[in-house]
């Protein structure tokens, strides 16, 4: 109950600034579109109507149709679900692996800690797009592959923050007391350390959502991301770009949606961070 009340307070604080409120509104819109896509959309996003391609905006098709006669508005709405699904699952992977490795690093002897940190450095030094290209070449393009790639590339990010937060906690008196009382390491980490560092990590996660959305769009733009017929914003931009001379609406609308969504998530994530801990993850 207290946690909920805390969260509500943080949210209220985050929305106090204009930027935070703007971000929150955009995030809410994207979330609604993503969660209730089948109801918010007016058409089946994959239904082809090849004879009615490049139709302009009308009462039937609010934003017109694309090069295969699919309803653009419905595809944009479903694109939000794809973006959110990819972003949330990729971040979940990064959060879990990163936190585990980060906690491990904080409690391991110096040599083990150095090994984990170097692992983080290797992943960070390896150009992520190259990693993505290679992994896609092995497994073929699919949504799952995108999720795993993005999750892996973000792991060091969470790992470092988790480690830093845990290090600060390690010598905290209440943990010292637990240890003297004979609590196992697992219990200490799960029951006491994790809950205390989770807040900052979740804020970090919210700030990484736009990053993931952008990476997914980039990969899909290169034809290496989610598979057709799935409507991802990157796929929509690529399709629109290919048929730019037939109609400029698709590329403008989908690039706009992507830009607005990433902007909204960034604004909201930052307001959230400022409300929780202004110094957190500032240097990225």
């Amino acid at each position, binding site marked *: 109950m207290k946690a909920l009340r805390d969260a509500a307070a943080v949210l209220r604080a985050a929305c106090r600034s*204009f*930027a935070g409120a*703007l971000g929150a509104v955009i995030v809410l819109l994207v979330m609604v579109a993503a969660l209730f896509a089948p109801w918010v959309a007016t058409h089946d996003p994959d239904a082809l109507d090849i004879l009615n391609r490049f139709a302009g905006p009308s009462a039937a098709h609010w934003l017109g149709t694309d090069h295969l006669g699919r309803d653009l508005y419905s595809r944009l709405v479903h694109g939000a679900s794809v973006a959110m699904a990819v972003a949330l699952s990729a971040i979940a992977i990064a959060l879990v692996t990163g936190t585990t490795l980060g906690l491990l690093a904080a409690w391991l002897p110096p040599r083990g800690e*150095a090994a984990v*940190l*170097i*692992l983080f*450095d*290797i992943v*960070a*030094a*390896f*150009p*992520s*797009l*190259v*990693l993505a*290209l*290679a*992994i896609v*070449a*092995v497994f073929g393009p699919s949504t799952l592959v995108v999720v795993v790639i993005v999750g892996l590339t973000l792991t*060091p*990010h969470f790992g*470092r923050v988790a480690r*830093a937060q845990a290090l600060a906690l390690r010598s905290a008196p209440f943990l010292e007391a637990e240890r003297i009382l004979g609590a196992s390491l697992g219990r200490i980490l799960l029951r006491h350390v994790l809950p205390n560092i989770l807040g900052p990590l979740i804020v970090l996660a919210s700030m990484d959502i*736009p990053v993931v959305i*952008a990476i997914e*769009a*980039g990969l899909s*733009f*290169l034809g290496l991301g989610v598979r057709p017929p799935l409507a991802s914003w990157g796929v929509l*931009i690529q399709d629109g*770009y290919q048929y*730019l001379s037939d109609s400029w609406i698709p*590329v403008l609308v989908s*690039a706009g949606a*992507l*830009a607005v969504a*990433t*902007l909204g*998530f*960034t*604004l909201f994530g*930052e307001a959230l961070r400022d409300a929780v801990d202004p110094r957190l*993850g*500032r*240097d*990225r």
Partner: protein
Amino acid sequence: MGAGGARYLAGRLLTSLLIVFGAMLLLFALSALVPGDPAATLLGPQATPEFAARFVREMGLDRPLHERLWLFLSNVLTGNLGVDVLSGRPVAGLVLSVLPSTVILTFSAIGLAVLAGVPLGIFAATHRGSVADNVLAILSVAFIAVPSFVVAILLLLVFSLWLDWLPVLGGGDASDPIDQAKRLILPALALALGWIGFIARLVRSSMLEVMAEPYIRTARAYGLPERIVTYKYALKNACIPTLAILGLGIGRLLGGAVLVEIVFARPGLGRLIYDAISVRNFPVVQGSVLVVVVLFVVVNLLVDLSYAAIDPRLRDQGRGGAAR
């Protein structure tokens, strides 16, 4: 720098070497896993089975794994990045021929980002709370949030097509620096935009933080002109985090350069890697990714070292420098 400095230096060098080594292992693992062969990919049905087998032999793909790993590592150690299976020429020469164009793009983008981002950040910090500060704040976020390939497409459309101001594509005539410079503007801008917003925000927040420090207040109390306080003390200290970010930025820009190079049809390392992976030209992939990783590590090492030189306290915090 005393003994502590030397130990710090040695430690950083060792980590850098380990990172490069780890990246090499990763690279090797990837090329061992990826299916497909360049003969079939490039020649389609014209690739005869004998020819495909020949490619496989030349890339050493028919040998046992440990032998291939050893060959790859020992070749790299002697400076041999392998041979491009298609043209039969050394990969090193190939990488060197396209590297300048990516390096120029990356550094112009970073330069642009600093030139535009630092003044904007200072302005915002010195006009804290004003309308301009608020507008800049949202604008900076917008710059950061919009992916560079979207910016690239929009720039291409607006400036080259609708306004017809700038030549659009490719790297330009190699013998004509002005032509090359013109063709650099849009890609560099597309790549830099996000970092402009980023640096502006960073400079702003670092400066505000520094200006609240006691010694700045002391300086003011002694009646130092506000301009000197701002530029001499506050800005100097605000540069430190900016520097660290630049190291990361250069590394990340190389990744971002791939998409921008593709949209603007520019030659470069990003494109080379993208094309080489899509045709499964493994020696080229390995050689050029290795160069990218080494570049990234070296730049970060330099940044870390200069960071430590500016602020010796950081050495004691271990690897604080490039930590994200």
